């Protein structure tokens, strides 16, 4: 019976997914009304191309998305061949445009527009003076030396359309006014031209995020460079593509701009920061895991004394003597590594407080932190065998607004005259309000902030401050668990690695700055650096293996 039921369901599903072809409608009116209802559409638009009997209907849906129906009209009846979803009307129109172009072919190829203009103006020569969002800025030199520059607009049907023409007295003036190549560009263009065996820059287009360069090679073919022209190191080429003619280059750019599936730049992670960053992070991770495993195997690991953490018991002792509560604030941040670390330390504080039946106040500014804090406090009381001592109201959510929280905490400090205060986590401007109020009531204060801007305030106002990563060492210090100790040692190894790296870099860089230079052995680039430094030394930083590791290929 069960097998029969399964077979029936499977068949039904199969029939639904495969068996049903596209729907058919008796006429256009029936199609329009049925689709309007089915798609919850705002409006529709018909597009007919010359090719075949195929038409397209663009439907704008109430949900801002769009559907394009490819339909076949046979004797008045409409058969929906396929229905393509798009995220918005723009993407749908872009797709329709590519279809239209495939239907009609390119209307204004760059090469024809350029040769037509040369003939039309009676120009003696034409050259490219710059790049614009619409395409290359071609300058036509007339026999009278007057230069006409056409400002193009991208033609969505592949090619260029001229929107405006400007006249200049000569080519240099035109270049001065319209040429948008910076010195950085010009230098790169020269180098790239040499690298491509004497290629000339024949086509260019400026996009929001990319600069396109179309190089005409000596054999008449083209290479398109897709580049980021504005990086600290100059022009960064993401990709190079080969094409047969300038029209193909232009058509490719137009099509690629409309087509969401064409990728223009790959490996952004590595081209921006290089392999060095990832390598270092992985190495640090390996250090940490290795040491955790080492500690778990029973290897004894020791860490130095941290004064602030030694004071926890004393602070709780004083609170017990005076029968006043211990206050804990895990910062005003969200539930992240910092808050979790603060709560882990507070776990130890609560444990000591539970042993002496000292009241606690754990005040939070984030509901997620509040939830975790309450669970941790309850667990600690339970594990100490005094669950009845846990007062759910001792862990409180005060407010998620910075200064409302600050006022609330300050009020509790003053009213309950807390004996000890622990401020650990992410603190901002409210840090002083907490620390000074606790100081007014004479509480012992231990503070740790991950915000270096707040650390000086805590140092000025609190009794003990955990500096920087001592905050992360706190849980290992208090709990002495192998995992925490191991990760702490791993972090220390990483710090030693960075120190060694800084020392090494200082030595290598200092040597490079003073090492003798033979001017005859220098490349053009090195000679520029040499001359920039009054012919004394080269800033070899551009040439070290390390910096090469931090860059993806530069051309």
């Amino acid at each position, binding site marked *: 019976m069960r097998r029969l039921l399964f077979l029936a369901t499977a068949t039904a599903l199969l029939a639904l997914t495969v068996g049903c072809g596209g729907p058919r409608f008796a006429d256009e009116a029936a199609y329009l009304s049925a689709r309007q209802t089915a798609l919850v559409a705002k409006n529709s638009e018909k597009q007919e191309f010359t090719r075949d009997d195929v038409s397209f209907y663009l439907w704008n849906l109430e949900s*801002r998305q769009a559907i394009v129906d490819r339909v076949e009209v046979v004797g008045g009846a409409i058969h929906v061949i396929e229905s393509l979803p798009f995220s918005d009307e723009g993407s749908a129109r872009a797709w329709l445009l590519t279809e239209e172009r495939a239907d009609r072919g390119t209307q204004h190829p760059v090469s024809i527009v350029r040769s037509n203009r040369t003939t039309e103006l009676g120009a003696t020569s034409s050259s490219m003076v710059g790049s614009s969002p619409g395409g290359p800025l071609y300058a036509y030199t007339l026999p009278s030396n007057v230069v006409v520059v056409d400002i193009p607009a991208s033609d969505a049907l592949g090619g260029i359309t001229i929107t405006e023409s400007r006249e200049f007295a000569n080519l240099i003036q035109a270049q001065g006014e319209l040429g948008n190549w910076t010195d950085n560009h010009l230098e790169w263009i020269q180098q790239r031209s040499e690298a491509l065996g004497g290629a000339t820059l024949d086509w260019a287009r400026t996009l929001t995020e990319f600069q396109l360069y179309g190089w005409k090679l000596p054999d008449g073919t083209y290479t398109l460079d897709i580049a980021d022209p504005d990086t600290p190191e100059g022009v960064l080429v993401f990709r190079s593509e080969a094409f047969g003619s300038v029209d193909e280059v232009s058509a490719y750019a137009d099509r690629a701009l409309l087509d969401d599936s064409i990728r*223009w730049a790959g490996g952004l992670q590595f081209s921006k920061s290089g392999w060095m960053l990832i390598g270092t992070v992985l190495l640090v991770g390996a250090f940490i895991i290795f040491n955790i495993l080492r500690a778990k195997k029973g290897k004894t690991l020791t860490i130095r004394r941290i004064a602030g953490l030694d004071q926890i018991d004393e602070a709780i002792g004083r609170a017990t003597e005076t029968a006043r509560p211990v206050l804990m604030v895990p910062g005003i941040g*969200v539930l992240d590594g910092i808050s979790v670390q603060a709560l*882990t330390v507070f776990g130890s504080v609560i444990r000591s407080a539970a042993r002496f039946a000292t009241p606690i106040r754990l005040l939070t500014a984030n509901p997620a932190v509040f939830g975790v804090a309450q669970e941790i406090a309850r667990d600690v009381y339970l594990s100490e065998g005094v669950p009845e001592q846990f007062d759910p109201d001792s862990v409180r959510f005060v407010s998620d607004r910075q200064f409302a929280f600050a006022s609330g905490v300050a009020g509790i400090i003053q009213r309950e005259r807390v004996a000890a205060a622990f401020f650990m986590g992410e603190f901002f401007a409210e840090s002083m309000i907490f620390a000074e109020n606790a100081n007014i009531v004479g509480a012992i204060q231990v503070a740790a902030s*991950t915000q270096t801007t707040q650390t000086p305030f805590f140092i000025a*106002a609190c009794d003990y401050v955990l500096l920087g990563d001592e905050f992360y060492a706190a849980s290992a210090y208090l709990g002495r668990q192998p995992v925490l100790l191991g990760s702490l040692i791993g972090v220390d190894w990483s710090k030693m690695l960075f120190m060694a790296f800084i020392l090494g870099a200082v030595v290598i860089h200092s040597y490079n700055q003073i090492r003798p230079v033979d001017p005859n052995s220098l490349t053009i680039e090195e000679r520029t650096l040499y001359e920039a430094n009054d012919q004394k030394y080269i800033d070899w930083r551009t040439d070290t293996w390390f910096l090469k590791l931090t860059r993806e290929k530069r051309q």
Partner: protein
Amino acid sequence: MNWSIQFLAQDTPPGTNIWALERTSDPILSQPIFWWVVGTIIVTSILLFLIARVPSNFRKPLIVGVTFLCGFYYVAEWLIPKQRLATGEEIAPVPVIGNWLAALPVASSTAQIISAMLLVLGVISIFRVHFGRLLKAQKDWFFSAVLLISMFTMLFFGMANFSERRGLDVTLAEIDKAAESQEMSERWVQVATLGSESQAFTTKQNAENDAFRRLRKGEISREEFETRKTEAEDVYETAVAASTAQIEAAAASGEMTPEIAGLARAGARAEQARGFIAQSQRFVFTDMLQVLDAATFSLIAFFILSAAFRAFRLRSIEATILMFTALIILLSFVPLGLAITSGLPSDQFIGNLRLDSISDWILAYLNTPAIRAINLGLALGVLAMGMRILFGLERGVSE
């Protein structure tokens, strides 16, 4: 795999993209968003029920597993190189499993929704503490009463204002529809009249403010100011009269022109902003809460002073160094302090003893390296913490 990524990213198909669903003027039961919300609540409740029923020895692996998967998504997002489209949009490089980077906003939205749900826990905590105190008439019960009244007042006006603004969206959509079908009604006459008045009033106010600013700066005379004010008044009257004529003509013909639609949109916005709810919300939030926030913030100045007074007492050699360093930095930030050593020539060796030179040196060569070292330690610490949480080694989270 692909469909699940697309479903998570809510990319396609369009019919199921819940983020793009809009509230319309239709009855709530016939709107897809309502059923999506109901469905989500049911599915989440079942999931939560199932999680609660998981035997305790499976609970840790479950939490660690979910934490790892969620955390690893972000690690992978950072670690795996991305590609960029012509539009500048970053995409995942593996086409087989779809653009999982597109799921990033959904992941963030989900995190936001979970935080919003947790906020209820926070509100319950506040309510329990303060309502209990109020009920038992404990010490300071009056403050608890004030807190609860403030909280519920803010909650009421905030929610009501949100609802009204959503109502405004519906009205604007109706105006769009009316503009498309060019249908005029009595309601649109009223709204457009309000819009014309509100637009003309804004223009008049801008002109008057500009004139007043110029008068204060001494750019124009008192007479000129009065003339400009009268002109602004006249412009207001003329604009209102012209719009009224347009609206009357449209009402007579029953056809809504694009201009009238524009006035109606402005009118609908003005109607919402001038309503009791919006005004009250502005009063409790902008005029009360934000002012109190600023007042609390300003207290910090006094606290810094008292903390500095204690920190700079010359108790030890370190405190003395600290005080002198602070003094140099403080002096270098005030013109009077800079004036002390301004006579020293800055292009000679003795220029190194100028207060600004010493202060710059302290900031650049003592302060910055120290801060960088602390930041490096913090970054490594948080990396280790993140790894412990990701692999379920952190006791506080996984147990």
